[in-house]
Structure formats: structure tokens, C-alpha cells
């Protein structure tokens, strides 16, 4: 199987993730879209590492996993805080700031 196909897959996953962030209402789902985008980038990194025969792409993938975990900690804390206040995690409901 050609290695390039993994790149197409990565691009498709990235596009799905980006669409999710922009279209879904729930903050949690939107956040999952971001995670999908990060993992798509990981797939691209690993594929390129394989193509180049270079290890740094794989190392980056590990770094990204750690960063994503840290981001989940912060993100979920914020989403939970706002959910407890408003009993809703919909991004359409957070509309007090405008002007």
C-alpha cells in the first residue's frame, strides 16, 4: 500500500475535525474536533517520518500527545465550570459578550 494514502487520510481527518469545530454546538464535541485535528497532524507526522526515514516525526507525535492531554485538562475544567454555571455546554448559549 502506498504511503501517500496515509497523508490523504490525515487530510480528511483534519478536515472532518475542522468542520466539527465550526458546525457542532456542544463545546465538548467541538473540543473533540480539535483533538481529531491534532491526531490528524500526528498521523501526518508519523507518515512523513516513515517517508523520510527520520525519527523526529515520531518523537513529535509523542510530544503532541502530551500537549493534547494537558489541553484536555485545561479545556474540560473550563467547560465543566461553565456547565455548572449555566446548565448547558452549548456554544450558542455563551452569547453575553458582543458589541
Amino acid at each position, binding site marked *: 500500500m502506498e*504511503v501517500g494514502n496515509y497523508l490523504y487520510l490525515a487530510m480528511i481527518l*483534519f478536515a472532518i475535525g475542522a468542520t466539527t469545530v465550526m458546525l457542532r454546538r456542544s463545546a465538548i464535541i467541538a473540543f473533540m474536533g480539535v483533538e481529531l485535528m491534532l491526531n490528524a497532524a500526528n498521523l501526518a507526522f508519523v507518515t512523513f517520518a516513515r517517508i523520510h526515514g527520520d525519527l523526529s516525526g515520531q518523537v513529535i507525535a509523542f510530544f503532541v500527545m502530551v500537549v493534547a492531554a494537558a489541553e484536555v485538562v485545561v479545556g474540560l475544567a473550563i467547560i465543566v465550570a*461553565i456547565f455548572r*454555571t449555566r446548565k448547558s455546554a452549548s456554544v450558542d448559549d455563551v452569547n453575553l459578550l458582543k*458589541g
Partner: protein
Amino acid sequence: MTPLIAAAPQFVQPEIWWTWLAPYLLVLGAAVVGVLVEAFVAPRARRSTQLTLALVALLGAAGWNVWLWVDQFAPTEFKAIALVNGSLMVSYFTLALQTVILVVAALALLVVADRSRGADDFAPTAAAIPGSDYEELARTKGLQQTEIYPLFLFAVGGMMLFPAAGNLLTMFIALEILSLPLYVMSGMARHRRLLSQEASLKYFLLGAFSSAFFLMGMALVYGYAGTINLWAITNGHALQVPEALVGGRPLLVMGVVMLLVGVLFKVGAVPFHQWTPDVYQGAPTSITGFMAACTKAAAFGAVIRIVVWFAPFIGLDLHEEIQVTIVIVAIASMLLGSVLGVVQHDVKRLLAYSSIAHAGFVLVAVAGVLPYDGQTFVFPMNSAVIFYLLAYGLATVGAFAVVRLVRESQGRGADAVTLGEATHLSQWAGLGRRSPFLAVAFSVFLLSFAGIPLTAGFIGKFTAFKVAVDGGLWWLAVLAVLCSAIAVFFYVRIIVLMFFVDPAADDTEPEPAREVVAVGALGATSDAPVGTPLAGEPEAGVGLRLSDELRRTSGGVTVLKGSVGSRVAIAVAMVGTLLLGVLPGPVLDLLEKTVNFLP
């Protein structure tokens, strides 16, 4: 058969130069110690310990950077020094920008630490539901959230790493280190907590979205070049494009543009600006000042890194694509920031749109980057950008420090209740009579934003636009001057309001802002009756209970005196702004060194 181990690449131990790493270790180390302080120091002593630790770390790192420049770097003929196997690449540009960030952050820290009238900008405990009994209990017990100081230091550490990054991975990690604490800090406001949490959520979701773009851009560039080391990419050392990627130039262009999307989001440039007004308005004001000044400086460091390392892409000139991208973003930012700033009625939102416009003005200088002519790597934009960011940073920290002192209040005399910031412009009328020092300081900052001569902002704009003209983009400079002229309108309007308009009498009702009504509607869902008087000290506006009713019935505006620290910060920012405007020569001469940038 050869043993596998022989075929494996040899591990080369990287050489660590501790002297050069000391500033980062100092700031990030102090942040880690700050976390321990939270666990082991008695609550009463925590705040002073944290504040001392943070100030020592920031000023120590700034001093260390100056020493590195004067004593270690200047005597050598190096133009850049690679640390930790090239993960960090320190140049004069890096040192200068880091020092600017550290100094401005130290000023911002003084404002963050302001506890005049017994309350800082932060919720007694951010975990409590706004308007809940738990929050009320925390307030009456006088809890403080001193975790803000370690978070602040972590953010500053990330900001220092950002313009020092020697490879893309370091840059990504720095981006996250600076962003994650900022997301948390913007959700911790003491007053109007719903707005603050909303700001935090918006900032987080959009920030995470943009860092995903940055990461994908990084992957594409890595896929093209086979390395993430900026030095190697620029010199084409690793440009053995594998056959699978032949025709990969679009890949590279897209990668670089996506990298730029990631950092331009942090800068707050159009079309990645949507978070800026909301987050600036909702976040605690002292944090807004810090975020506006320092994040912008750090992110522009990264923008310049990317532009400088990729624009003269040897053997594959990317100059045109990058320049076109930057020019489009610069025009959009200047126009949108200046035009929408005119129609704002909220001081914090107005400063947010002003910051968008300023991002555009800095990008005008960045767009003046010249193509690689085959021999020299000289980037005149570097010194212009650093000077602009210093001028903007001083004025921003000062301006937000003033904004947080002008408060809404109800009642008179000893019973007066101080609420959140009086951000509606009509509430600023007559400030010049009530508090001349703050009004004069705020006017100086606004004039500096507007770019009026004898302030730092003028020199900043002049040098920035000059770079664009030298780069052949005179029409862009003309457009920038026109946009500044539009922006002057709303800055001067505030000055007129402060000095030449009488304040509304205390019994008149200020027009209720829309968000207040919304807060009231939401407040009804909590079981506490809206507007019940609080027991204990006359301090209110924590959470939901009093944030709406009082504001609608009161025309009162109090001006807090502010702690010594925050007055010192305002004074230093004002003197700095004027001094840089009158005598910019020495600083500009010093920054002259940063234009030499050897990849």
C-alpha cells in the same frame, strides 16, 4: 550479519550551556517553586511570597538577559547561538524581545497584585459556581487565589521561549505553554464572572483550533523538508525531496501559511481576531493588560521567526507568497480595527479593537521584508517591530491599569459598595476632574496609541512604516497612515470625554447595557434572589447576585486609589512612553543590532 545496534544511529549527547539557559530556567523554575509555595506556605504569607518570587524571577531574568547581551554576546562575532542541539536559537533579536516581554510583564504583575480595598481582580475561588453560597462563604472568609502567580510565570516562560525557538517543535510547545495558563487566567475574574467564564471558553476553543492549524502546518513543512530545524530548513540542507513528494512546493506554501495562521491568531490579526474583543472584555482587566501587551510581543517574535526563516528560503523563494499573505492580513487588520473601534461604547472592547489595528500596523513593518539577495541577511523590520511592541506594551499595561481603577459604585460615604469596572464610555465623563493623575496618564497612553508626536507610539509607527516604504510598499504605508487617522478619532473622543464633558449627576441612570440584562435573566435561574444585600463587608459584585441590579440603579462611579504597585506601574509606563517619544535615539541605536540575523 551485522548487529542491529551498529546500524542504529549514534546518540550524541547535546551540549548544554547553562549560562544561556538561565533566564528560562529562572522564570519557569520560579513558576514550579510557586506551585510548591501553594502547598507548603501558610495562606497568610502566600501572596507576599508569591509576589516576591515572581518579581525577582522576572527582573532577574531581564537583568541576566542584559548581561548576556553586553558581556557574552556583544564581544563575540556570532550573530546567533544555537542551544541544546539547535532547539533554541538565541540572537540579538531574541534577547531584546525577551527583555521587553520581561519588563512589561513585571509592570503587569504589579497591576495583577493590586489588592486595594482588600480585593484583587480574581474570584475568591474560581471553582465556585457564580452566585452560590460556597462562593459567598469563600468571599467572607477572605480566600485568595494566589495560583495566579505561578500561572503568570508559566505564561511568561512560554512567551520567552516563543521568539527563541530554533525548531518548530520548540515553537509549538512554547505556544502551548503560553496559551494554557492564559485560558485559565481569563476565566478567573472576581466581578461579572459569567462574562469571564465565557471569555475563557471562547479563548480556549478558538485557541486550540488555531494551534491545531499550527501543528498541521508544522507537519506539512516537516513533510517537505524532512527536518523541523529552522536552520536546516532555510539552508536547504535537508531539501532532498523524496519522490513521493515531488511537486511538493504547494505543500510547503500551505504549511508555512498554516504556521502563520497559528501565530497570527495569537497576535489577534484579522481574520483570526474574533476572540479578541470578547476575551479582552471578559477577562480580569489586569490579565487583559498582560495578555494584550506580552502575548502580542511574543507572538510577533514568532511571526518574525517564521517570516525571516522562510521568506528567503534558499533555492526556493517563498518571499512572494509570504509577503502577499502578510500584506492582506495587515490591510484587513488595520481597516477593521480602526473602523469598528469607532462604534464601540465599552472601554475594554475599544482597546481590543485598537489592539487589532495595532497588530495590522506591526504587520505593515513585517511586510517590508526583503527577498534574499544572495549575500546578506539584514532585516530592518526587526528593530522597528521590537520598538513598536515596547511602545505598545507600555501604553497597554498602563491603560488597562487605569481602566481597572475606575469602578462602578452604589451608595455614599462609608456604605459605598464598589462593583466591577465602569467600562461604559459615558461613565468616563469628567474623570479629569475627579482623578487628574489617572486621566492624564490615560490620555498619554491614548495619544501613544494614536501615534501623536512626542509619544513612543509616534516613533514606533514612524519606524514601522519607514520599513514598509524602504521595502517598496509605499502604498501600504499610506494606507496605514490613513487608518491611524481614523483611529485618532476614537482616542481623542475619550480624552474629550474625560476632560471637557461634565460627569452625569449621580441620580441619572446610565443606559443599561445589553449584557447586563442578560446577566439578570441568567441570574434568575440561580436560587439566590437577585439583588439581596450582602452580609459583611461592603464589597459586592462577586458572582451574579449584585452584578446587575446595582449597576442599573446607580449612576455612581468611584475611582479607586490603587495600590502603590499599580500606581508605580502606571507612572513608569507613562514616563517610559514619554521618554521613548522624546529621546528614542539610545533605544533605537541599541536595537540596531537586532537587524543582523544570520540563520
